[in-house]
């Protein structure tokens, strides 16, 4: 029984300490805008964007979160069904790098994906536009971390200068799409209901 054709919707969740630039990255990617003002994200919200990934048009739904609350205000329903999780830290803030582990673990638990080992994460080191002397986390350290977590793709970005933002989200979309395809395989579709008692007919091809 053919399923009605579905529009591909990719759910992407962005996590990281507050102030690392999650909202800014999303805004830069979706609206091509950046603001120096800091406005704490309240609760969670999402932006959508249509992108072409490998000749397919997909809609990515980017869920921004308020870092400080550490998931507590948001239901698990929120994280379930995510296709990709983007972890963001601020390269000038060592603390925001150290908390990555617990963001990742917390996400995995809340989302409990089918195949946690291969669940796509992407790491973004944001705010690379600032002067070198301020940098607190080296690229080496970040890539080492990514390697230890099963080769997570890593991008150094600047929401302010729009550096690498497009590339990063392209990768995010691609990885999410792969994940989505896998989930579809996993999903336990309810078996089609047989309307007719005679099964040969309900599944039958045209016999002529």
């Amino acid at each position, binding site marked *: *029984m*053919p*399923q*009605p*054709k*579905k*529009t591909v*919707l990719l*759910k992407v969740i962005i996590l990281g300490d507050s102030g690392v630039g999650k909202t800014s990255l999303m805004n830069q990617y979706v609206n091509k805008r950046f603001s120096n003002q800091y406005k704490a994200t309240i609760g969670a919200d999402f932006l*959508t964007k249509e992108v072409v990934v490998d000749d397919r048009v997909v*809609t990515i739904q980017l869920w921004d979160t308020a870092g400080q609350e550490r*998931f*507590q*205000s948001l*239901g*698990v*329903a*929120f994280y*379930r*069904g995510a296709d990709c999780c983007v972890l963001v830290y601020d390269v000038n803030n060592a603390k925001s790098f150290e908390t990555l*582990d*617990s963001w*990742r*673990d*917390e996400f*995995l*638990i*809340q989302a*409990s994906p089918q*195949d*946690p*080992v291969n669940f796509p994460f992407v790491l973004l080191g944001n705010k690379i536009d600032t002067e070198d002397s301020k940098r607190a986390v080296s690229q080496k350290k970040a890539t080492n971390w990514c390697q230890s977590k099963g080769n997570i793709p890593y991008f150094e970005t600047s929401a302010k200068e729009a550096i690498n933002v497009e590339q990063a989200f392209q990768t995010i979309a691609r990885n999410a799409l792969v994940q989505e395809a896998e*989930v579809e395989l996993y*999903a*336990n*579709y*309810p*078996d089609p*209901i*047989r*309307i*007719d*008692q005679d099964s040969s*007919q*309900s599944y*039958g091809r*045209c016999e002529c």
Partner: protein
Amino acid sequence: MAVELKLKINNTHTNGLVEHNQRICLASASSILSYSMDWTILDSYKDTRKLLESLEILQQPQLMAILGDSTLSLHKMADLRDINLSIKNVVAISTLNSTHSSLSAEAAMQGRKRGTSKRRIRLRPIDPLETPTPIQSLLAVVTKRKVSVYTWTQDTAQHTDIPLPNTPKLVKILNPYTTFIAYSASEYSLIQFDIKSQSVYSINDVILPSTNKSSLTANLTGFLYRSKPLMTPLDSEHIILVDGTQVLVIDQDGVIAKSTTIPASADDIASARPFIYITIPPYSNETGSTHVYSSYTLELVQVLPVVCSFLHKSSSVLYVDAPDGVSTIELVNTKLLIDSSVKQGKYDEALALLDSGSGIDITQAEQAELRLKILQLYSISLVDAGLVDDAIDIFIELHTNPAKVIALFPENISGRLYTPTHEWSILFGDFAKLYKHVDERGESECEDAIHNSASMSSIKSDTDSASVKSNGTARTAKKEKSSIEALLRYLTDRRQKLKGSMSQKKHSACTSLNVKLTDLTKQQLLDLPSSPAESLNGSELAVLAAVVDTALFKAYIETRPALVGSLCRLENHCQPEEVEVSLLDRRKYSELVSLYKSKNMHGKALDLLKRLCLESESENENENGNEESDLEPCIAYTQQLGREYIDLILDKSRWMFDVNKDIAIQIFIADDERVESLPRLRVAHYLHDIDSHLSLRYLKYATEEINDQDPALHDYYADALLQATLHSRNTPSFDSTYASYVAFLSRSQQYAPKERLRGIPADALLLARAILADRLGRHDDALRLYALDLRDYDSAKKYCNHVESKDRSIYTKLLKLYLRCDERTAPASYYKTSSASASVSPSPTPSRTPISDDTSNPLNAPNALYMKEAVLLLTAFPTKFNLSEVLNLIPSITTVDELNVFLLRSYKAIVGKQRWNSVTANIRKAEDTRLAAKLVDLESRYVVVDDNRVCPECLKRLGNSVISVHSPRGQVTHLGCKDRFSVKLQRTQGYTKQDTI
């Protein structure tokens, strides 16, 4: 009997009726009549159209949609004469007033996306006291080859036109994101909108069973049952449509969820929970009738012997147009119906009946209680039937005690909470005894369900009946898996809620760590309150958190072993006793270490790490003789413990030193705050017991690299170095050890020199003694040690230079030492000291060989060597000495030649010094004069007369009297005293002037 037809207005017929705001509006020909709820007429409005067919309310914009003569008009509800919009050639309309929030939209979307949309249970009737969610109103209008969707939200109104290949006959909005259209009785399509933007949509055909039949049959059926398309929303995610004699329940993705057959093609359809009403016109020999079906089981409930057309569904009744006039269909004997539904295990139906609110004569409180009981039964039955996901929704909604929920799951997850199915009813109290496990409900019922595929039991859904026939085991496994999935959703949700509540109450880790579930009986756990996390007290929260996390852990072990690590690493409330065994069994050691770590059970963690390390060592040995074992994890773990755990660290790290000292030392020497925070003296003592070299290495690190300034540590280090030095005497390592001792003594300012000096055995380690003597301020002793005992003349000179600022006579003292070796200096000459080696490396007295030559005549004259040094000293620093003193000291036998340079330089220095003195004296004098002149100048210009100033002549206060100022010194006198004072002044002036010039 379940429902009853009640005539309201005799002989009045209509096509359109709505109830809104305690009013009923009814379309009658070209008028709209407005009634109160007891059917007294209030108002009427006359329209220009001939026949009004359908009325709908749009709540958000407060508009009434009126369709008549193919024209749709939107009227202000406050005044129907005020028309907002008018559209011609309208075929059909549909409206929806929805309270879908964005999150439930998300949920709906998720369901759509995953293709797992399922029955959703309306748990609670909308509570009017709850903060009103903003209503969104939608209107769909079908015109020629187009459907237009208008949307009103709180602050926007928008509209999308969707062009279509044909003109549909019927449109129904299911929810804000899904609209169904029908072209004919067998051609239905659905339009799905994007959540964020209505202009993004997709249209798909609904695949009906009749579509699969050959086209001929389809046509034939179409011909035989030719009738209009019929559909009506069942709930926010399902729509009912009629395809010939099939009634299908379709979900929002167009997938068929349930179906049944009706005896003949239908005329009209309506849904008002818990029933679906279908009008069947006369056929063959039958008279027309209205069939009432359960909307849950699609079972036929009742047949009303009249043909009705359905007008409007209000919260409690269904308005119909019956042969006798406008009537309502109302529920009767609801309580009986509920009871019978409950008995039959049709809990969802019972709930819907209860929620319909009509025909029950029990109080609100009783209703709420009954609701709760039915819901609990319902939830158990859902779990029993494997529809755990749905059950979980109820558990979450009811805030059911998680212990009870977990108890429903297999023992590998629920542990000692496990409760076999036949005891479930006990879990949920007396009422739950009503619940019977499926097996007990009797085979016959199940059999029936299988044989009669059209009528399906509420719980044992289609898939189950099929499963009995097909491969049952695979299904069971699948079912079990999906039920654990649902449990995961539940547990992670609970975990989050409990955590949130705990952190709000600041009942953080400390209290929860003390929770031991084993202290509580199973019953105590099951008796915990079923209430929202916010209203639980600290200890209840802690216990429940432990229950939930432990179950989550076990569920992960079963289904997502990879997530066990994540759970263990994060702050968690798992009961270590319960989970460690299973981690050990599965050899998930790193997870176990993480768990211990998160629980601050570092001792156990370290023991485990030790075991692993030693095991791998022995394995390696067996395999390739490589004895290197990886201490790394143990060390890393120990490093992050910090000061607080010093006892543990010292206790548990001993073995690592036995394995590899050089690596193990990293426990204490690492670039890490926590490592640096360890109490250093204790560490030093500890290391000393293992190996004094380690201790020294550590102390060097502590004092040099991390710059420890603790005097006790420095004392300890100095003594340790001393011991090491003494121990290494006569060994090749002596030199370097002694060098570092000396270096430390010179560098550090923190140790207590007196005690250190006392610790050095007499006559040994002279250089060290010299440094210590200097520290004690005993410069003479230090100097003697350098000059005579060590015969390190260079150092002696440097020492003079170093001390000069404190003791100006130090050079002379050195000279005296050289020239007059009194008895006190003698001992040094017992030891042979080559001056060369003394200057290169501090070499104390390895051998005590007397120097025979020198001792022969120590008292009378300085030996030649000293004399030479004395002369060198004088030559090098001629200005540091008093010439006459030197001349007195010098032994008479000294030749002038030897002293030539000294004398010359000394003389030059003296002369130079004198010259310099006279120059400075004169400069000072000139400056004095300049200042005196300036003073005179100033004093002649300004005088200050204050209360205390007295006249120098009469010695009385000047006060306010007239004064006279005398130059050049500016003395002030009374005017009357002026002359006398001038005379006196004149007398002294001669001298003064002379003096100043």
